[in-house]
């Protein structure tokens, strides 16, 4: 098994056994800054060697994809799972958005198998973080006069994650592959090893979701498994319309299937205070994240191969 997955499982087991293992929070922050920058640099360096215009329809398509996922998740949670309005809206926003750690695991998975993907996947990652947040807020509160769209937009576009992805991409694009060469020893060659350490912490965090999962019974688990499968299918369809390669298809399916656990919870805590953050996180972190990295990615790749072979 891939060592990054083993690191995740180690963190999970250590957490479940209530080990005293704890990563300093500054280390966790530093690792996530590194990963976001490195993903951005990699994507930007790829973009430097191709025209940017074809990106526009792709960006439009994944915005629609994110909105659609959020609406579907919201309806399902309201009608099938009996969630109240704020919790349904907040959880739907988590699932309509994306997870950077899942992206990183999928990128490492593809790289280990020498499967190329389009460099703009990093752009799409950044783009897909945002629409679900705005849709989630509208779903929770309706469109009010007093909604502070300015500060919401600020939150969405200038949050830490999007800033680092876009900044990294801009640097990678401006410097190009040769420009980045003197710093690639850190940002590219050590990427997987840093990701492994990050996943150790993710395992510890996931292990803390178990209590909430127990309390909420089966419904979170069912939703947390069904939703990524549905989203992955939508993602594959979108990727097929856009004419992506197998690697690109796999990645877009993975992005769609992934659920946010950093940007969206922070935004929802402020914009939809009535929603219980423990519920959405138990779903996105406790069920969907492990499912995606353990089983989802190989499955989506298999589906992508079928689709592009057809």
């Amino acid at each position, binding site marked *: 098994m891939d060592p990054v997955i083993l690191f995740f499982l180690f963190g999970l087991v250590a957490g479940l056994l209530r080990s005293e293992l704890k990563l300093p*929070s500054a280390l966790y922050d530093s690792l996530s800054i590194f990963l976001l920058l490195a993903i951005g640099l990699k994507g930007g360096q790829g973009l430097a060697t191709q025209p940017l215009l074809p990106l526009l329809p792709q960006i439009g398509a994944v915005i629609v994809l994110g909105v659609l996922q959020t609406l579907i998740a919201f309806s399902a949670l309201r009608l099938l799972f009996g969630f109240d309005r704020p919790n349904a809206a907040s959880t739907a926003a988590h699932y309509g958005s994306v997870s950077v750690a899942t992206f990183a695991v999928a990128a490492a998975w593809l790289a280990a198998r020498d499967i190329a993907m389009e460099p703009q996947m990093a752009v799409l990652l950044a783009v897909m973080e945002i629409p679900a947040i705005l849709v989630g807020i509208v779903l929770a509160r309706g469109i009010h006069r007093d909604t502070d769209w300015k500060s919401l937009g600020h939150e969405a576009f200038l949050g830490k994650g999007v800033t680092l992805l876009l900044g990294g991409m801009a640097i990678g694009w401006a410097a190009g592959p040769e420009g980045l060469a003197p710093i690639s020893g850190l940002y590219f060659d050590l990427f997987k090893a840093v990701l492994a350490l990050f996943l150790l912490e993710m395992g510890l965090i996931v292990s803390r979701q178990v209590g909430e999962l127990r309390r909420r019974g089966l419904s979170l688990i069912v939703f947390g498994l069904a939703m990524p499968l549905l989203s992955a299918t939508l993602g594959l369809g979108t990727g097929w319309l856009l004419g992506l390669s197998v690697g690109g298809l796999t990645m877009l399916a993975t992005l769609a299937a992934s659920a946010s656990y*950093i940007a969206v*919870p*922070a935004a929802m*805590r402020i914009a939809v*205070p009535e929603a219980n953050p423990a519920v959405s*996180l138990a779903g996105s972190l406790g069920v969907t994240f492990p499912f995606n990295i353990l089983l989802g990615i190989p499955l989506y790749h298999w589906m992508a191969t079928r689709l592009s072979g057809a």
Partner: protein
Amino acid sequence: MSTMHTEKRTLLTVFTEASIEQLLIRDMDRLGVRGYTISDARGKGSRGVRDASWDESRNIRIEVICAREQAEALLAHLQARYYSNYAMVACFSEVEVLRPGKF
């Protein structure tokens, strides 16, 4: 016994979630609070254990020294706006300050 001239003010201490720090700073600025101090914390309360193990479970501790009326106005605002949806506990205590004009 005391030879120093001091005046009484109220110290409002608030324990709450770190995720709303920016909101609270904006509120205090809007309500005309002239100074405050914030530090990081963890803890337990009616909303469960918040052990600062990651962003979602970090607490902060806000201290504001001001006139009683302002402290009450600030707490009334916090109560109306945040008490029902956020982990939050607050208390008043009495302190003596040297330069009352500052508070």
